[in-house]
């Protein structure tokens, strides 16, 4: 039986994660426990959700540069409105998701570059977040805190959550007809259009779905940190893009992998811990993080060549 390239696409991120994990266990045997795994990975859960959101946007050939600001905004809503008056909080979130759909429509109708629109939106979300929480504070809703600190038997919450996120998005994106359409818009807009589908609706829906996952990311983050500030998740913009690419996704062509994206997010989080266990000086840490990315992407390049050769055969 020959291994298909899509499997190889998933094998590389999974192998890098396993390798990093082995290295971390070797350096810090204490991590090889229920609590240890949870501490290593719990902050990866919101990153994984943001990565899935970014992956959806990338599936339709766009890029969301407002991801970090939007997750920060959602975190601020969670720590203030959702906690104090849940109905109002849910309404704000619904409004935010609708706003995301509208952004998708505007980008599609006006044929604007998504990078410019979302970069502009990042200032809007950032401003709203500062308005809500001018100084750091707020409080996590009890249920969010309970969810993120719950201790399921045998497998830590962080792992369970990652698997659940990966499986659900895998079924939505890779196994459902909606997912086919989303990826179709990224792969070949014209053929989707000719087949009689409304691309504008698909794009709006994709953006809304991405907004939904970003909202979940904000809630999960506050569940972990117990409170929010307006700049809490600014790093998520680049982390989420890197996570998608690391997990086997492409910038164009509707080539994405939900399971890969979650693995990519876990790998990025683990890379940070790995470097800190290695006692690498902070001046070098950003560089070292970049080096890990380059190594994995180098493997990807190799994979793309393999794929090409397979096609030409």
């Amino acid at each position, binding site marked *: 039986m020959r291994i298909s390239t899509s499997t190889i696409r998933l094998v590389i991120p999974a192998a890098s994660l396993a390798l990093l994990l082995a290295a971390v266990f070797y350096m810090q045997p*204490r991590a090889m426990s229920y609590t240890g795994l949870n*501490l290593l990975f719990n*902050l990866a859960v919101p990153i994984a959700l943001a990565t899935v959101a970014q992956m959806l946007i990338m599936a339709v050939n766009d890029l969301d540069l407002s991801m970090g600001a939007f997750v920060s905004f959602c975190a601020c809503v969670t720590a203030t409105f959702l906690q104090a008056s849940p109905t109002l909080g849910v309404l704000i979130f619904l409004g935010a998701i609708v706003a995301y759909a509208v952004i998708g429509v505007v980008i599609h109708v006006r044929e604007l570059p998504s990078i410019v629109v979302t970069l502009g939106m990042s200032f809007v979300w950032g401003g709203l977040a500062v308005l809500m929480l001018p100084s*750091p504070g707020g409080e996590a809703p009890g249920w969010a805190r309970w969810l993120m600190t719950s201790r399921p038997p045998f497998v830590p919450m962080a792992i369970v959550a990652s698997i659940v996120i990966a499986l659900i998005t895998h079924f939505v994106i890779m196994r459902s007809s909606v997912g086919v359409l989303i990826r179709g818009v990224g792969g070949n807009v014209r053929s989707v259009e000719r087949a009689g589908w409304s691309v504008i609706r698909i794009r709006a829906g994709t953006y809304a779905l991405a907004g939904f996952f970003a909202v979940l990311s904000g809630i999960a983050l506050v569940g972990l*940190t117990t409170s929010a500030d307006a700049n809490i998740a600014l790093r998520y913009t680049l982390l989420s893009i890197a996570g998608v690419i690391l997990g086997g996704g492409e910038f164009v062509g509707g080539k994405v992998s939900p399971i890969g994206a979650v693995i990519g997010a876990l790998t990025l989080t683990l890379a940070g811990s790995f470097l800190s*266990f290695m*006692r690498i000086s902070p001046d070098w840490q950003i560089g070292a993080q970049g080096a890990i990315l380059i190594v994995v992407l180098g493997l990807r390049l190799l994979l793309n060549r393999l794929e090409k050769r397979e096609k030409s055969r």
Partner: protein
Amino acid sequence: MIIRKMLFASVAIACVAGPVSALADTSGKKIALSNNYAGNSWRQAMLTSWDKITKQAVSKKIVAAADPFTTAENQATEQAAQIQNMILQGYDAIVINAASPTALNGAVKEACNAGITVVSFDGIVTEPCAWRIAVDFKAMGESQVEYLAKKLPKGGNLLEIRGLAGVSVDDEIHAGIQAGVQKNPQFKIVGAVNGDWAQDVAQRAVAGILPSLPEITAVVTQGGDGYGAAQAFAAANRPTPTIVMGNREDELVWWKQQKDKNGYETMSVSIAPGVSTLAFWVAQQILDGKQVKKDLVVPFLRIDQGNLETNLAGTQKGGVANVEYSLEDAQKVISAAK
């Protein structure tokens, strides 16, 4: 309840693991510094002080290790991950200069639950299980007016140079100065400008407001702005008022020159970057089983006419006057809080 539980736990650990000698109780303990930013001279001095004092402590076997960690980017999520890594690395105490007062609370709680002592300083965290070594900026502002009231009993007009607008430190120092003026009504603030804690900005701002002001007897400042104010007064050919300084090297040099020339008198006050070493000793004391209040206050580093030369000699060019704290200093701070 939590405090008692934690103290009980640390005492229990100390009893099991520690040798009998009173001072050596913490010789097997490992302390980590979690720092969110290293990009300015104050933070660099802070890390250097930590290095110097903790290396001595380690070589004297007071603690087993005291490793500093700085996050690559000044982001709360990254620092939270860093703290969780420290839990895994098995540190007994974590000393934190936090990127956010609240966003690290989840990670800090995890650390407390793992039986780790958490001490925050400068950038403090609000999680109740952690210790806080806070700076009383309000008292710092008030002390300036108190000094002036002693030196100039007749009072007079004050010019206030404020810091960066919208930052809590600026508000607190300003509130302290206002409280001081209320207590000493012989002083009147006739003008206020924002100097952004930078000499060039302060100089421009003071030069701009000076022509509209009556005679100024003294200038109250927030640090990093005294030298610029002095330059502005000189450029406008106005008599130099008493300018309160903020421990920066250029300010102290200027003060020294004036002192030698015409016996100029003032004082200088700011927070020493060596406060990291105070946090280190507080953490060591807590590990030692001492009862320590959750909220401690950092003493300011004040320079007066008498000790100007010694402080200036110990300050690096372009740096900030610094002081490293000893175990005895920490014990004093701890007992003062009781």
